[in-house]
């Protein structure tokens, strides 16, 4: 009896405890939910989107579906000549694309890979309406007026006869594209090129269904009188680049929906049909800039450490009321606009600037050998070390505050020289601060943009400057995203190495 009672009592108690624990957990979850959602929306999703853009390449196959499908089975090499049929598919793809202005977008996408494709597509888009399709639409609708109405084509597109498969398919793609780009309305008329496709289908085979027979009987005589359009000639007349295997090779290479091309470009390789190839020496850029970014970030971190450590030590050992005053001096530049500080460095460092003027005035250097302190790596390192210094001093200071002076005193009283006492007792205890400060400064500097842009000249710019160029100027967002992803990967890899070597638990902000 007693046993059962206590069991019930324990059970209900257990349940109560569990319930209150659950409520506590939910409350905690509710408290972090805003931050969690914020991070998800402002951080995880954009970064995911960026990673995706660096491999995404759907545009080419979406706009040129027939052409890319046909190219799949082609072996393109030096002596290859584009067959007539290819131009037929290209004609239909481009005729649809021009109506919704997608051809130039594909053109600029492919121009990143092969110079000249942009204007090739733009030019072709302008002349494709003059390939002779209007003769077809005129003659056919004269013979069969209902062809001029979109309703007839709607009916046609609902048919099932195998013979008109290509016309149906073309009409549906055309309609889908117009609707997707808000060009479709009640008043839309069938485009000229659709008549060419229809005529082609009618000619292609024997009459195979009684339903279509009347249409074909009517149209066949007209069609046989119309001149055949030589699409290959038309395209080559517009621009002889269409005969270049290189152009087709590029289209073929960038047909798949996903590509590693952006990543290859960001490490100075070029995607080719026979595998990636390294670019010629005068076009290699990104590996150099990546290594420069790393080098400068490490240097800036070291400079900050060398300058910041004594300052933090000095601050930590000062009585509190003075320490606060000096801390304000450290923080003061921190509260000034970044642009103002960077511009101030320009005034100080330039050739005719304050520092050079003083050096010349004091006779340390002659007027003709003024120091090059800006528009190069030196300028970037000086200005950025200054800007990032507080990020080193503050964690160092707060860690050093916690090191009790009695430890060093004890070491000294046990016979250690001041240097040994510092090296063996004080310094090891300040390492968590060094770790925290270094990580902060390094990670901030590796992605810095505005200061290197202003004072970096040609040799002192970071990879972020190239990323900014591709995002805002060249519009090559894929390449910008690939460069950004690589930068992210490098930072994560370094963080991992740091964790293995020093241990991330060994980092303290205070």
């Amino acid at each position, binding site marked *: 009896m007693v046993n059962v009672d206590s069991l019930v009592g324990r059970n209900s108690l257990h349940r109560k405890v569990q319930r209150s624990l659950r409520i506590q957990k939910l409350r905690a979850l509710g408290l972090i939910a805003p931050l969690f959602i914020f991070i998800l929306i402002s951080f995880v999703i954009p970064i995911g989107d960026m990673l995706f853009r660096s491999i995404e390449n759907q545009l080419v196959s979406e706009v040129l579906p027939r052409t890319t499908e046909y190219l799949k089975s082609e072996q393109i090499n030096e002596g290859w000549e584009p067959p007539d049929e290819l131009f037929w598919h290209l004609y239909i793809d481009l005729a649809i694309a021009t109506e919704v202005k*997608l051809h*130039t977008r594909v053109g600029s996408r492919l*121009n990143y890979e092969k110079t000249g494709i942009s204007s090739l597509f733009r030019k072709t888009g302008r002349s494709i309406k003059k390939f002779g399709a209007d003769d077809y639409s005129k003659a056919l609708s004269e013979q069969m007026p209902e062809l001029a109405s979109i309703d007839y084509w709607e009916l046609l597109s609902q048919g099932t006869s195998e013979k008109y498969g290509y016309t149906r398919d073309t009409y549906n793609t055309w309609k889908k594209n117009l609707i997707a780009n808000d060009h479709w309305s009640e008043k839309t008329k069938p485009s000229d090129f659709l008549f060419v496709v229809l005529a082609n289908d009618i000619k292609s085979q024997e009459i195979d269904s009684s339903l279509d027979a009347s249409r074909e009987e009517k149209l066949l005589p007209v069609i046989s009188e119309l001149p055949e359009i030589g699409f290959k000639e038309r395209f080559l007349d517009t621009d002889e680049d269409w005969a270049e295997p290189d152009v087709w090779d590029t289209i073929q290479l960038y047909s798949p929906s996903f590509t590693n091309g952006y990543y290859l470009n960001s490490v100075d390789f070029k995607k080719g049909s026979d595998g990636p190839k390294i670019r010629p020496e005068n076009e290699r*850029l990104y590996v150099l800039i990546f290594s420069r970014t790393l080098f400068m970030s490490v240097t800036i971190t070291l400079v900050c450490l060398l300058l910041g450590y004594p300052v933090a030590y000095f601050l930590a050992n000062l009585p509190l009321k003075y320490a606060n005053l000096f801390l304000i001096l450290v923080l003061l530049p921190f509260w000034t606009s970044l642009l103002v500080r960077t511009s101030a460095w320009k005034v100080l460092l*330039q050739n*005719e600037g304050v520092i050079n003027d003083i050096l010349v005035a004091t006779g340390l250097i002659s007027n003709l050998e003024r120091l090059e302190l800006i528009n190069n790596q030196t300028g970037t390192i000086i200005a950025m070390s200054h800007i990032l210094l507080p990020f080193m001093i503050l964690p160092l200071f707060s860690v050093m505050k916690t090191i009790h002076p009695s430890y060093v005193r004890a070491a000294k009283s046990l016979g250690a020289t001041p240097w040994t006492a510092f090296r063996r007792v004080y310094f090891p205890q300040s390492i968590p601060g060094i770790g925290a400060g270094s990580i902060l400064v390094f990670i901030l500097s590796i992605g810095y943009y505005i200061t290197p842009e202003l004072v970096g000249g040609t040799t002192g*710019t970071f990879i972020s400057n190239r990323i900014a160029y591709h995002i*805002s100027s060249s519009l090559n967002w894929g390449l910008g995203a690939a460069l950004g992803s690589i930068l992210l990967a490098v930072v994560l890899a370094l963080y991992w190495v740091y964790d293995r070597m020093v241990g991330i638990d060994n980092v303290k902000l205070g």
Partner: protein
Amino acid sequence: MKLTKLSTLVLGCIFIANSSQAMDLTVVSWGGAYSKSQINAYHDPYMELNPDITIIHDESSAEAVAKLRAMREAGNLTWDLVDAVPADAIRLCDEGLAMEVDVDEILEPAPDGTPASEDFGASLVSECFIPQIVYSTTFGFRTDVESWNGNEPDDVCDVFDLEAFPGKRSLEKRPINNMEWALLCDGVAKEDIYDVLETEEGQNRALAKLDTIKDDIIWWSAGADTPQWLADGEVVFGSTYNGRFFALIEEEEQPVKILWDAQVFEYDGWIIPTGLPEDRLAVVMDLVRFATDTQRLADQAKYISYGPARASSNALVGQHATLGIDMAPHMPGHPDNAYNVFYFNYDWWADYRDDLDAKFQAWLAN
């Protein structure tokens, strides 16, 4: 009592906002003196004529292409009219972000009836581009350089002559213009430059020419850099837009002169973003029609030394609004200045920009 007053006020405001045809137009431009010239010459007069329309000025033209593209992806267009250089206009047109327009249909003809397409002539470089001004990128130099022994450069190739004209030069940190000048001074005829630049050897040749002065170049990326450096004596020679030189020489009164030789003619104008709702588009079209008529473009030259893109406006160019000097001699197209003009090839650069920029940056970084 108080509450009723307040609510009446709020209701009144809502009523006013709804009843009238008030509309806010966001017009994007470059900021600085250029925006001011636009505001004075046509935005303010337009708002005076149409009191229910308020023009909001945004200074984001430098990032216009990227921002318009981002707006499309977000499906939220917040701009109504954008000032852009032709290179950007071509890009926006290609991307389908700018509207194709028929200038004869949407713009005023010249006072004598000449259709707009003829009046604007060569400045119509893209189907989406509505020109406003002609400006030029050219060189300026300090007139008080001792080591030049009283000589003044009169040829663009003096930029490459370190012996006669020693000192630092500032050039724009991009291949455009610099490659052309380099080839021009390497002995290539003006009309062959783009043909030569298309070849690998031509590109290397241009870079090799630039190599001869590379150590003495400071690269600029903002139009204000060169004037600042010239004023500080940081450089003795430098390229920038002619309007910047005008401000430096006439307003700041610095000892600087413009070298008009081989100035590169460029245009600037409007693009209308695609996807505007019909009522807004109608107002934007009306504003553009007003802002690009012959008188308005001539008025703009009162505030900045950029030439009107319309031929018919040139005769109407008067004096500077505050300095009171004749503006015509300061225009890039004035006969005294336009004795040797280089026409920028937009189509060519639309193709080669990415490729050459990569090569140029690789050259710079090494």
